[in-house]
């Protein structure tokens, strides 16, 4: 049981490494990260009706091994760095016009040089998998000291180091209210949300630092300013890609960051779309959507158990459970595909919102909801 409970969260680490190998082997394999996303969407959709609970032994203790899970989360930092280096290496070869040919590396065949089309595959693969940094960046933003810095660094690889502060101090406090940029109000589409939420959280993080430094009598322009520091953490990526490919390098890194941040905000979008909370009242299970289909649960290390997470924010992901909160009933991959088409998403979500209004909302929350319809 212990092995199964801990090993099931290894899907992303394993697939990330496969993606890196794909970029390094080159040729059509550079697309492997994209292909995996497609396959995952199919698996997630086919298994959407399987919902499992968290597993505890007869004493009520979780089977999750903290040292192991933390080890994996920390290990993912060098994995995501390796992914960027692999892409930078391909950018370098592309701009240096390295001839496209099969070479051997310790007896393993790989394609030296890369065609434009396969470079696009490498960029898309890297962006999608870099975007999954969020599942570790998120978990570590809550859990304990050194984890916070690792969270900042993982997020910095996607130019999103501000997330760590904004998530804890803004999103968890202001959830379901217009003061929370990460909660999408009814009627907003995922594309608009990605932009507004990203900018809103970064602005919040800036204001937070400004306030803190002012209290200490320091100026905002300061390396003590963790908003600035967060962007400085992203500088090594920028230097690497400029060095690897000049303007092409910058364009590639920008594409990776856009895709990664889009995925991050997609998770925020799916986790809270249209849900409302009267400000100042406690956050309850009804203020989040759960996505706990089996594949989503394992792949996204239970980040879909939003209802429980927002009430017990200190709880490790492997202990989060079904709390009978609002639930889309499908996984994140399937929902993401629906949300990519705003008109389709609006239609899909209608019945879920109506159900929320009827079963979960308080009168005050309904009054706020009425303003959106």
């Amino acid at each position, binding site marked *: 049981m212990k092995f199964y409970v801990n090993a099931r969260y290894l899907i992303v680490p394993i697939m990330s490494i496969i993606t890196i190998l794909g970029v390094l082997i080159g040729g059509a394999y550079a697309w492997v990260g994209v292909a995996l996303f497609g396959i995952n969407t199919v698996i997630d959709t086919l298994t959407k009706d399987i919902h499992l609970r968290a597993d505890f032994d007869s004493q009520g203790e979780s089977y999750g091994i903290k040292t192991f899970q933390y080890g994996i989360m920390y290990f993912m930092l060098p994995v995501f760095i390796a992914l960027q280096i692999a892409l930078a290496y391909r950018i370098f070869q592309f701009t240096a016009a390295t001839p496209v040919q099969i070479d051997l590396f310790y007896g393993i065949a790989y394609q030296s040089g890369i065609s434009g089309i396969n470079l696009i595959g490498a960029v898309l693969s890297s962006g999608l998998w870099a975007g999954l940094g969020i599942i570790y960046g998120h978990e570590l933003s*809550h859990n*304990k*000291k050194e984890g*916070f810095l690792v969270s900042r660094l993982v997020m910095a690889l996607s130019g999103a180091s501000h997330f760590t*502060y904004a998530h*804890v*101090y*803004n999103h*968890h*406090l202001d959830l379901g209210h217009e003061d929370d940029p990460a909660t999408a109000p009814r009627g907003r589409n995922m594309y608009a949300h990605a932009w507004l939420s990203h900018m809103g959280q970064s602005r919040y993080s800036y204001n*937070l630092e400004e306030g*803190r430094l002012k*209290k*200490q009598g320091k100026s905002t322009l300061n390396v003590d300013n963790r908003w600035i520091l967060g962007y400085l953490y992203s500088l090594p990526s920028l230097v690497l890609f400029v060095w690897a490919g000049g303007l092409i390098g910058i364009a590639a890194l920008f594409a990776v960051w856009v895709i990664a941040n889009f995925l991050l905000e997609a998770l925020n979008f799916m986790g809270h779309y249209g849900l409302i909370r009267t400000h100042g009242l*406690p*956050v309850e299970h009804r203020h989040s959507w759960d996505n706990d289909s089996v594949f989503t649960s394992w792949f996204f290390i239970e980040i879909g158990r939003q209802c429980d997470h927002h009430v*017990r*924010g*200190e709880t490790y992901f492997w202990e989060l459970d079904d709390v009978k909160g609002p639930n889309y009933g499908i996984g994140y991959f399937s929902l993401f595909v629906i949300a990519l088409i705003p008109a389709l998403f609006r239609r899909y979500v209608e019945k879920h919102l109506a159900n929320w209004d009827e079963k979960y909302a308080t009168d005050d929350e309904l009054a706020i909801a009425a303003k959106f319809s």
Partner: protein
Amino acid sequence: MFKIFKPSPTSYQVKLAGSNTEFSVQRGDSLLNSALSAGVQWPFKCKVGSCGTCKCQLLEGKINPQLDFSYVLDGSEIQQGYILACQTMLKSDLLVSLDLDK
């Protein structure tokens, strides 16, 4: 509410000043969660260190803060020893003061 736990090297004792409430905290558990599981009506809201509801004053003992308190507590509170119980791990036995009527 009075609880006695066998002292063990893996846990610390916490006393609330001005009351006879005492509870133990296992290593690795937060001050807030241990208080709640001991039945203390400790006020809290977010449990992630962002709302400040769980704050209390540390009178004696050493802690290991899990998050920077300065976003939630102001300078004078920090100087007076205020801490956020949900983000506090223990390094020794503690004496804390908590306004339970909040």
